């Protein structure tokens, strides 16, 4: 899980990120950084992120910053690296090079005696608990009920009591409209319902960032709506940074603050959805959007 890099990554001047000792008032670093500045710094920052599988470069020295509460839609042809972007952010795949910061803290690295070294498993687990992910294939635990799926991580990782976790899970399951399905096993739920349980399960960890990896691609068209409605509600009612890889152009256009178009491991065009969809500048983007339009 650890990332090997020979890069000497410069330390950002503003953040005392050491886990062990809290920032001291007379610490020069804290004088330089007023508390409010954390609100301006991005929630997620990719810096020179590179991912290679053998000779294949899936992410090519990618730089990307995602603001707090920003909703970013990631689109592009298959194999362009969009899912890999979410997977490396969730630390499911290690990076080949570069680094990722989440909430002002390095994710793939940690500070040790003032130098950044590849993160330990413990550090990874702590920082990635700020991130929640929903998968294309739901990945609910089949031997647990919807409720048990949702209380598992809060009890095991956050140390909540069963009562607290159950209370939180019931609230979330009713948020996704499944309060009456608490005791159902995944096999007893439709695809759309399973995906909504998966969203509730991810939210139960109170993440700051939510990743949606083609969450409607495995669903019948008529079940997509119920899942997208849940995501819409989350976007409007909760302070969540969201990254979604999607093929639903209509949803991206209506929901996202920004659309990023991936091709061959790079973002070749990005912008607000209105501008992106009505006046794409890059030829590859125009070609992609034309092809998508023809398919509908």
């Amino acid at each position: 899980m650890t990332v090997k890099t020979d890069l000497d990554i410069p330390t950002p001047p503003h953040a005392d990120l050491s886990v062990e000792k809290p920032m001291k008032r007379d610490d020069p670093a804290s004088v330089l950084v007023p508390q409010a500045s954390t609100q301006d710094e991005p929630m997620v920052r990719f810096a020179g992120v590179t991912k290679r599988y053998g000779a294949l470069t899936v992410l090519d020295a990618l730089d990307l910053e995602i603001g707090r509460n920003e909703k970013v839609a990631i689109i592009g042809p298959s194999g362009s690296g969009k899912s890999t972007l979410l997977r490396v952010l969730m630390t499911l795949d290690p990076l080949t090079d570069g680094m990722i910061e989440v909430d002002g803290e390095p994710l793939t690295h940690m500070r040790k005696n003032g130098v950044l070294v590849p993160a330990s498993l413990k550090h990874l687990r702590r920082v990635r608990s700020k991130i929640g992910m929903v998968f294309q294939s739901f990945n609910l635990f089949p031997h647990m009920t919807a409720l048990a799926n949702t209380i598992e991580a809060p009890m095991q990782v956050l140390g909540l009591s069963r009562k607290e976790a159950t209370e939180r899970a019931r609230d979330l399951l009713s948020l996704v409209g499944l309060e009456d399905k608490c005791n159902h096993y995944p096999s007893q739920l439709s695809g759309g319902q399973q995906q909504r349980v998966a969203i509730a399960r991810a939210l139960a960890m109170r993440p700051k960032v939510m990743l949606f990896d083609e969450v409607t691609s495995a669903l019948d068209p008529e079940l997509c709506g119920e899942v997208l409605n849940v995501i819409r509600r989350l976007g409007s009612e909760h302070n969540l940074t969201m990254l979604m890889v999607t093929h639903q152009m209509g949803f991206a256009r209506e929901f996202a603050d920004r659309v990023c178009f991936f091709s061959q491991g790079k973002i070749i065009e990005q912008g607000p959805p209105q501008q992106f969809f009505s006046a794409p500048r890059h030829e590859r983007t125009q070609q992609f959007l034309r092809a998508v339009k023809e398919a509908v």
Partner: protein
Amino acid sequence: MNSFFDLHYAEQILPALLRASMYTIFITLIGFAIALVLGLVLAVLRRSPIKPLARTVGFIVEFIRSTPLLIQVYVLFYVLPVYGITMSALTAGTVGIALHYACYTSEVYRAGLNGVARGQWEAACALSLSPWRTYSGVILPQAIRPVIPALGNYLVAMFKDTPVLSAITVVELMQQAKNIGSETFRYLEPITLAGIFFLLISVSFAHLVRRLEYSLRLP
């Protein structure tokens, strides 16, 4: 000599054979309990990201599976004392049969672990579950359920292999039947009774395993 089954004689030897079958059941249960736990440990170690460890465990498993149980219990009981390690026949026999079957159960677990979808590991990772909880709460409950019948087969196979321990003087069911036979020069009744005991106990084990499988079934 009477070639019919002598009920009166059978009744006389029944208590001794029953005692010996308790011995056999005891060896089987203790041995299988060890095999279940050790097999799981071996299967998990064999998936270790530390390659030399995984390869070593793989080699040991293949080595033990590829040599006869009889030789292994001989080594434990007759060879190890040369190096100062002395065990009672019962201990050596139980350890031997447990080790032997741990290697078989580890292969069963391995198949079960391989059968768990990648997405389950990823979901556990995305929820920040610890490696321990990922195994105990997420992966193993899914990996073990489908292989319960295969594990049950090895329980029965192990039970039927306990007569091998008679070679190192463990007086289990088969050895007791042979002893009775050699004392009275009449083998028909003790061997038949031993066979019936083996049959009844095997069928009971198989039945219990099926009930366990049924009770753990998911909707």
